[in-house]
């Protein structure tokens, strides 16, 4: 099944998805890797630079180009999600309902509340085509790959790889 979804995601959006579905995601996604996750979990919810309710996190460290003071995303495929397993319960507790990455994660924490979307690892030039613009960037002190990039995406083609009912495409 293929569906179009827009962020923020509701619990109903998430519960309707099944592992193997293709989702074209539009709206806002926020990149975060190891250090950004540590910082997200060290701050009180209201101090976060984005609203985590229904938000989608993208495990990605993009290649960016800075032109005339604004940023352009050149290449932006997913990074290995397994490194973020240790923060998974923490971010899902904040209300995050979707995580995009590659390689999969622990399936259990997603049950009843969120889904894991896979995008093809290494296909950064293709992913960048779905990024319409950079809405904001936070925490640049962590370095470009580790910063929190708030991206506006349109019809980002994703595969539901772990659904909210305990099914996973990973073996």
């Amino acid at each position, binding site marked *: 099944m293929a569906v179009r979804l827009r962020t923020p995601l509701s619990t109903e959006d998430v519960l309707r998805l099944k592992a193997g579905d293709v989702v074209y995601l539009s709206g806002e996604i926020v990149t975060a890797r190891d250090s950004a996750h540590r910082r997200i979990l060290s701050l009180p919810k209201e101090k976060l630079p984005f609203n985590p309710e229904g938000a989608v996190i993208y495990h990605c*460290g993009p290649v960016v180009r800075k032109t005339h003071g604004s940023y352009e995303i050149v290449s932006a495929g997913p990074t290995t999600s397994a490194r973020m397993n240790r923060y998974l319960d923490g971010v899902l507790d904040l209300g995050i309902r979707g995580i995009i990455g*590659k390689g999969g994660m622990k399936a259990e924490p997603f049950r009843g509340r969120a889904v894991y979307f896979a995008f093809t690892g290494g296909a950064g030039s293709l992913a960048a085509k779905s990024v319409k613009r950079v809405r904001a960037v936070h925490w640049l002190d962590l370095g470009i790959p580790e910063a929190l990039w708030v991206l506006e995406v349109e019809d980002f083609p994703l595969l539901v790889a772990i659904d909210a009912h305990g099914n996973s495409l990973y*073996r």
Partner: protein
Amino acid sequence: MIEAIVEAIRLAVTRIPDDVVSALREAYEREENGVARFNLGNILRAIEIGRTESIPVCQDTGTLMFFVKAGLRSPFLGEIERAIVEATRLATEKVPLRPNAVDVLTGKNLGDNTGRGVPIIHWELVGGNEIEMAVLPKGGGSENCSALAMLTPGEGWEGVKRFVVEKVKACGGKPCPPVVLGIGVGGGADYSLLLAKKALLRRVGERNPDERIAEIEGELLEEVNALGIGPMGMGGKTTALDVKIEVAHRHPASFPVGLIVQCWANRRAFVRIKPDGRVEVWQ
């Protein structure tokens, strides 16, 4: 010289070599399940965009590694190291590359892909008056799956196969399969890993000229593909595009096996610098 090295870096990260692309196309044709085709289709589209728009195919433009064969009579011998470092800086800004060099103590990323020990340069002194170098941008996701086994001679080649298959299985989708496996056997701990990495510079589809080794490469490729891990670890017929083995003599008591896992973004480019300053860049 610096421009030629920048050009080679650009070529490596924006243009996946033809031999790798054909192997990926064949894999796409072979796959029947929708998920495997979704991933391989995306890979082929990303490669196409990289080529037509000259942008990095994968956002992890890796740690830059250079394998230099330096001709003892090249007039540029004294300049080459500085040129590589400078080209790395320039390429980071111009291509652009993702800044990937992080201080191990402070975690700081200085932003230009240079730092203590990086870019990584391996030197080999050779006769002649030319300098030839290979550029290998190595991604982190696949490098994290690399490993070393100090087998006993009794375990021998069966042990090599078991170790490689187990390792690939344990890594699942993490190294962005379909992968290319570089394997070094013999030498010593460090040398087997170096051989393994250098093996990745060989073309996909090309067997080792030693028939006995070529046969083992073929057998391992079949065994790894029988695992069914598939593109991105979500199932399928192609887990590896190729297996490359290089060997050196071993100590009687050891049987070292270095395994370097390379992702489908099997990037490389070469530069030759002639004594009169003319340069050639190719893949």
